[in-house]
């Protein structure tokens, strides 16, 4: 076991992906939270975004309902850590949602944001424009997709 649990922030679509494909990488990330291997931080904003999942076309067509989302939230609430009103230390004009996830990670001292959003992922991808400035300002932060997070956790376990 690592010396400290990894603090993470999940993009709301990780929860959508987990509900739609529980055996996929997003689902496995959520299982890691439930298994106590990750400390997940969220906010009222993130919970609100999760509650909006059934209103979107693909989740709705596949059968994601308000009831299923509430059932997921009920299971996650006891093990997730709520951050109230994270201060705005970062602002991304093109997408306020990206800003919130970064600010949530900063407020909760989480080093990892897990997302499939290519805009968020580009923030810590050195080959993308603007990433070097972001990484210089917030060197502690890393944005990973679910498969990268799982790979990192497996690699750590193998090294223990």
């Amino acid at each position, binding site marked *: 076991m690592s010396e400290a649990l990894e603090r993470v922030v999940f993009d709301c*679509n990780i929860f959508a992906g987990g*509900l739609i494909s529980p055996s996929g990488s997003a689902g496995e990330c959520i299982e890691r939270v*439930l*298994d*106590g291997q990750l400390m997940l931080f969220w906010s009222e904003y993130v919970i609100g975004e999760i509650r909006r999942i059934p209103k979107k076309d693909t989740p709705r067509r596949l*059968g*994601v309902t308000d009831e299923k989302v509430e059932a997921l939230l009920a299971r996650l609430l006891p*093990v997730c850590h709520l951050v109230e009103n994270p201060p705005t230390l970062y602002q991304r004009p093109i*997408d306020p949602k990206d800003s919130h996830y970064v600010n949530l990670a900063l407020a909760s001292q989480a080093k990892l944001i897990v997302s499939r959003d290519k805009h968020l992922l580009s923030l810590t991808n050195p080959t993308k424009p603007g990433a070097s400035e972001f990484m210089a300002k917030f060197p502690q932060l890393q944005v990973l997709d679910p498969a990268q997070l799982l790979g990192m956790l497996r690699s750590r376990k193998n090294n223990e």
Partner: protein
Amino acid sequence: MSTITIRIPDRTEAKLQQIAKAAGKPLEQLVGDVLEAQTSGRRMLEEISGDIGQRFKSSGMNEEELAERLEQEDHQSRGVPYDE
């Protein structure tokens, strides 16, 4: 709420104390959370998802396509462009 007493190796207790400290929880709460997760958490998503997972498999979409659609619809719902 039930109470149980269990015997565990000192080494395991030390690890649990370490995790509880890192998680900012009392040891008793951590152990309760771990037991809850172990007894029902692993299959929790599949239970809640129910037939959604089967519908997803039948749809022919793969994980990448699903992720891309979710992102596009999320951005569309917020009026934020998602194209490069």
